[in-house]
């Protein structure tokens, strides 16, 4: 059996090349069918996302999987080999397994640790499975890849820290309030950024959104997006004591929330904590507001700083994840080798058992019939002999299966015992 993984990714190919090779969802089934139908192909999976296109296949030993994929691509996609050749990577055997595990664990992603790729991989797996292109060993390898991804996620902190500004805001809000259930948000200014932050906060449990904007129509429009309430721009300060999280992104050229305003607000709130997010440039909230007890003010640079710190942390975790992946690849390879020698072991045992049975028959014909005790003694004697003989070669097969010279040992034993190929 041969394993080949071929593809292009955001690291090796620009989008012009990736889009040439991409498979649309509706054409994927047909493509899988065509690939499976190629001479010598046992199993196949096609992963096609905006960042990568990868074809994985297992073939019989006597064919060249590379040639099959080249032929397949030439037939499916109108691209010349020269165009894609500089961008394409090919991995075989162990390297292919390593690559697959790294992709599943999101170590090869654009933003390391982002979990979407695992979902996309599962979709590709399901597509291959339902179209009958996945039915044996490769199926097991993918299942293994999914559990490696799970292990990496749970044993390292690779996916734990927010690496986008709006997620960082949600994470900070959680640090301040614990649960976001029943927290209210006020959006001051109705920009794209604040919409995104509000969406994340809302999804994390925040209960109500107030929107205020200089143009009341825009406020009403945005409020409708979150089933929220538009608030008159002249009145929003009076509403602040009711609000836990403020997202400021208005285009005002000066501060719209000053320290003394916020001092009054926090007193009216009886010191219940407040989280102010100022993503406007120029800033909307006077920086000294952060000096007030129980108010936490983060501007865009502060959030970026959190994101950068998280990214650095992620990189550190990614190193641990890489080691973990290598460990899993080794384990899979060892299992694979053991699986490869299993037919030889079974063949050897069958061969010896056959010899024993025919020799026993001969003895019975010549000296029999025997009493039950004699039968029992003969049975025990012959079985003992073949087990002793088989013990040496079987131990050697198991021990050498994972070693570099394993193939030679297997070949020598097969030859010595006249095992058929």
């Amino acid at each position, binding site marked *: 059996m041969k394993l080949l993984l071929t593809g292009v990714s955001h690291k090796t190919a620009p989008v012009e090349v990736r889009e040439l090779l991409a498979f649309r969802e509706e054409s994927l089934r047909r493509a899988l069918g065509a690939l499976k139908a190629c001479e010598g192909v046992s199993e196949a999976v096609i992963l096609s996302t905006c960042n990568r296109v990868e074809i994985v296949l297992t073939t019989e030993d006597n064919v060249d999987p590379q040639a099959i994929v080249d032929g397949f691509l030439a037939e499916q996609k109108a691209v010349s080999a020269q165009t894609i050749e500089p961008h394409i990577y090919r991995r075989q055997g162990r390297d292919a397994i390593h690559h697959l595990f790294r992709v599943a664990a999101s170590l090869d992603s654009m933003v390391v640790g982002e979990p979407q790729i695992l979902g996309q991989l599962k979709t590709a797996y399901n597509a291959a499975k339902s179209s009958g292109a996945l039915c044996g060993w490769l199926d097991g390898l993918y299942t293994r890849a999914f559990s490696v991804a799970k292990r990496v996620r749970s044993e390292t902190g690779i996916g734990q820290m927010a690496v986008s500004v709006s997620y960082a805001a949600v994470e900070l809000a959680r640090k301040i309030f614990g649960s976001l259930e029943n927290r209210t948000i006020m959006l001051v200014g109705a920009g794209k950024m604040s919409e995104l932050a509000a969406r994340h906060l809302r999804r994390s449990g925040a209960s109500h959104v107030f929107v205020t904007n200089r143009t009341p129509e825009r406020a009403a429009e945005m409020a409708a997006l979150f089933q929220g309430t538009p608030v008159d721009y002249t009145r929003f300060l009076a509403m602040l004591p009711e609000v836990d999280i403020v997202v400021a992104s208005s285009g005002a050229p000066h501060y719209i929330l000053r320290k003394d305003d916020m001092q009054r607000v926090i007193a009216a709130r009886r010191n219940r904590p407040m989280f102010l997010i100022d993503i406007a440039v120029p800033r909307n909230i006077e920086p000294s507001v952060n000096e007030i007890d129980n108010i936490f003010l983060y501007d865009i640079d502060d959030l970026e700083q959190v994101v950068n710190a998280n990214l650095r*942390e992620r990189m550190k975790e990614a190193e641990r994840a890489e080691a973990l992946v290598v460990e899993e690849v080794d384990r899979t390879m060892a299992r694979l080798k053991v699986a490869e020698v299993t037919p030889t072991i079974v063949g050897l045992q069958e061969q010896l058992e056959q010899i024993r049975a025919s020799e026993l028959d001969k003895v019975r014909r010549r000296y029999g019939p025997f009493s039950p005790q004699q039968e029992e003694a003969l049975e025990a004697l012959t079985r003992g002999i073949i087990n002793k003989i088989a013990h040496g070669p079987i131990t050697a097969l198991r021990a050498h299966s994972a070693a570099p010279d394993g193939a030679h040992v297997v070949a020598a034993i097969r030859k010595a015992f006249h095992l058929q190929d």
Partner: protein
Amino acid sequence: MADMSVIWLRVAAALYSLGLLHAILTLVRRRENLFRVALGAFWLGAVFHFVSIVEEGLSIHHCPITNFYETLSMCAFLVVVLYLFIFWRYRLESFSVFIFPLVFVMALVATMGNPVNSWTSPVVRDAWLTVHIVLVLLGFAALLFTAVASVLYLFQERELKSKKPRKLHWLPPLGTLDDLIWKSMALGFVLMTLAVIVASTWAFIEHKEAWIRQPAIAISFFTWGTYLALVFLRVTAGWRGRKAAIMTVTVLGFSALTWAAHAHLGGMLKP
């Protein structure tokens, strides 16, 4: 104190106890739903209290401020009158959380000036004392949790203010800590208040009217007073963070002192 005067004062203290209940419910449920009833009882209690003071004055033919118990009763009465005036003028409901328990404990202590019959049996005496010790220890444990959570709150707050929330990422969120602080503080206050009531009665029966002169008792009341102030500031002004943490640790310190002052107490349990 004259016997009749003490009886009226006891009735007044019983009515004031509704005020304590109101304060505790406010603390535990964060809702003020017993206030009307407690305020009514407070009014009625004030009337009985007044009767008690007049009775005492008539019996000694003097303004009843001649000993500690009389002065305490008078002081409590003045606080009551002052609060009722302030409430009538400014409708300050939130003060009640502080005033009601304070007045109740003052009135209760003031009733304990006349010697009463001694213990009917040593079993009752010991059981009473054991209840007190258990209540105090539970209260102390709750207070310890409040203090630890307050200090963690302080760290987490500083971390968030510094805008580099990475170093101490294992700290629980502020909201969770705040919830823990609130709950353990309320529980601790309830336990400590009950312990103070149980202990005053026990000491009164044990030591007759001389009980109040013991320094350990004075420290206990002082500690309870600081706890009451902490609770009050939390409920009304929403004290959190640095101020609350310092205050909580102070209360914990006083509690430890009080404990040390009572080191002999366990030995008073009859073997």
